[in-house]
């Protein structure tokens, strides 16, 4: 078996005590920094990249993989504990994860995220090792029209995310798309909606929107309630680990998330984010077991599914990088940077020219994942202790971390003014009963959607039928329409409303 042979080469290279130590240190640093709100995987890797210069190539990549997974898991931790999504893919984790934390079930939520991610990571690694080359072919089939249709599907999926009014969710997606367009237009170089403010020509930062709308909005709304009705966190913490019932609920969710994530991760651009959102949509549509908590109120599947999808996708997103040399997202672009520093040119030739490095890297990703779970399961106890801190001490600290996180991304006070605006907006959304999660998906997809729409219509000379005449694109749109019909069907709608009665 080629696969086993190759993997054994990889593990032979990566599985040395010194490399394990690097993986551990990477994971630890990644988690500790990633857990600071506002500092996501990208910033963490950028900060720690210089620390890996002096290491031999394989060790450096192992440490970076550790940092990456650590930072990503650290981001999910803050999402669950304090309602702060540090990056796009943890926006969905916030929805049910934070509710679980409020009910004293932060432990199971964190464990579900960790275990789900680990499982997904293992599968993702196998997919990466076994199917890297054939899967690249699939990515080639995606032209601009297909990407656009895929994003439409993703956005329709986001409508299902919202538990309240469908129309309001559509409005929020459109608002998100529009916000994503603020800044310099890549085609013409025109600065759009920037009001001649130089900082706005770079666009609005994701962290700014995430921290403002989720972080500040939630804090203001919590403080607005009287202390007696506030009860931000349940007094007693119910168990650190998921119960048997939890495991039974989350196992299928993890499986579904893993499959979905492995598939979407291959596509360059937004794979991991789309995977997390899509997984949540599927979980919400999947049949509920009797006695399950509704979504949006702390359902463990709402944490396990997206987190697995996200991790599987970040694993398979190495495929375009390693086989085509195309970094699918900013984090991967940094990894390319790290590789070139060590004199490795990512691309199809890596597999043949330095097989021990290629397979070593794949093995190291698995090691990074394993290290994560070893490190983080014991840490759960400590994170939960944080929630026993009285809210009147906790909230100034959260405000502070939001402000610092926002400032540190660009070392620019302008972002602090922006987060204030989004904080007010976030509170307004809560008051008006509008859910903010679709906004962020729209924001992430906005620029990509415009680009692909432009390219698709440029290639078809302005003929809109291109989206339905190309088979793959047409089927994606058909699924989108089907999903929309299901959502709009009156009977389903009534059930939705029963399940998600507004607070």
């Amino acid at each position, binding site marked *: 078996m080629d696969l086993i042979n190759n993997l054994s080469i990889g593990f032979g290279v990566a599985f040395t005590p010194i490399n394990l130590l690097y993986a551990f240190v990477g994971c630890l640093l990644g988690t500790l920094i990633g857990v600071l709100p506002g500092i996501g995987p990208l910033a963490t890797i950028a900060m720690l990249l210089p620390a890996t210069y002096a290491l031999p190539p394989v060790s450096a990549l192992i440490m970076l993989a550790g940092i990456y997974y650590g930072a990503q898991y650290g981001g999910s931790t803050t999402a669950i504990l304090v309602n702060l999504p540090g990056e796009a893919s943890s926006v969905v984790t916030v929805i049910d994860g934070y509710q679980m934390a409020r009910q004293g079930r932060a432990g199971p939520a964190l464990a579900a995220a960790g275990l789900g991610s680990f499982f997904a990571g293992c599968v993702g690694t196998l997919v990466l090792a076994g199917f890297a080359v054939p899967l690249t072919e699939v990515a080639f089939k995606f032209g601009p029209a297909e990407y656009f249709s895929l994003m439409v599907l993703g956005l329709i999926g986001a409508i299902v995310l919202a538990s309240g009014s469908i129309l309001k969710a559509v409005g929020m997606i459109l608002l998100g798309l529009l916000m994503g367009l603020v800044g310099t237009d890549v085609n013409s170089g025109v600065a759009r909606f920037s009001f001649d403010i130089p900082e706005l020509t770079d666009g609005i930062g994701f962290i700014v929107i995430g921290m403002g709308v989720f972080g*500040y909005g939630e804090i203001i709304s919590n403080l607005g309630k009287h202390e007696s009705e506030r009860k931000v966190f349940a007094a007693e913490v119910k168990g650190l680990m998921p119960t048997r019932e939890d495991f039974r609920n989350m196992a299928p969710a993890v499986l579904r998330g893993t499959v979905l994530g492995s598939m979407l991760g291959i596509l360059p651009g937004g794979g991991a984010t789309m995977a997390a959102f899509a997984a949540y949509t599927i979980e919400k549509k999947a049949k509920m077991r009797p006695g399950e908590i509704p979504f949006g109120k702390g359902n463990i599947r709402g944490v396990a599914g997206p987190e697995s999808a996200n991790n599987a996708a970040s694993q398979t997103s190495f495929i375009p990088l390693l086989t085509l040399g195309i970094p699918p997202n900013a984090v991967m672009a940094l990894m390319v940077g790290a590789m070139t520093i060590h004199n490795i040119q990512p691309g199809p030739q890596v597999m043949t020219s330095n097989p021990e490095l290629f397979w070593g890297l794949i093995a190291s990703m698995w090691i990074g994942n394993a290290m994560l779970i070893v490190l983080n399961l014991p840490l759960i106890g400590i994170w939960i202790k944080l929630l026993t801190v009285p809210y009147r001490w906790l909230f*100034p600290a959260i405000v502070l971390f939001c*402000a610092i996180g926002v400032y540190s991304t660009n070392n620019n006070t302008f972002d602090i003014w922006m987060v204030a605006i989004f904080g007010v907006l976030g509170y307004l959304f809560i008051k008006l009963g509008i859910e903010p999660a679709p906004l962020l998906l729209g924001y992430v997809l906005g620029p990509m959607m415009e680009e692909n729409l432009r390219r698709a219509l440029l290639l078809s000379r302005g003929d809109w039928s291109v989206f339905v005449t190309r088979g793959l694109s047409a089927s994606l749109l058909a699924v989108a329409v089907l999903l929309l019909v299901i959502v709009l069907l009156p009977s389903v709608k009534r059930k939705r409303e029963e399940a998600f009665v507004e607070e």
Partner: protein
Amino acid sequence: MRIKSQKDFFSGLLFIVVGVAFAWGATNYKVGDAARMGPGYFPLLLGVLMAIVGIAVTFAALTVETEDGDKVGKFAWKPLFFIILSNLVFGLLLGGLPSIGLPYMGMIAAIIALTFIAALAGEEFKFKEVLILAIILAVSCYSTFIWALKLQFPAWPAFIAG
């Protein structure tokens, strides 16, 4: 005409206003046509769509009956004011305001100010408690961000650091 869902009514208005604003803004850029989209094409499309959604939401808010009128309820002005103020003061102290020649006071001062102002948003304000919290936060932020991560934050006021 009676508003049947206050929340939806104002959400709809919000969508209409923002959608129209974006669409109107987009017409200032070259719109072009489908084959050769200018920078204004996509935002114009989205803005118009958003306004339509807004109209639909508003219309539904006026027609679809709800049990309790879906009141927006009282705004929590006090926390809103103090949280946002604490954030603004933090930025002002951390970075200064070069346009009016205000020098920066550095991170330590900014953290202490933020903690005190943010704490005012809560129901009880115990000076001693908040002071301790501010000191803990300042020390831990200094050691994490400046000492350990070596981020380029000004820690002390301009007139001390020079």
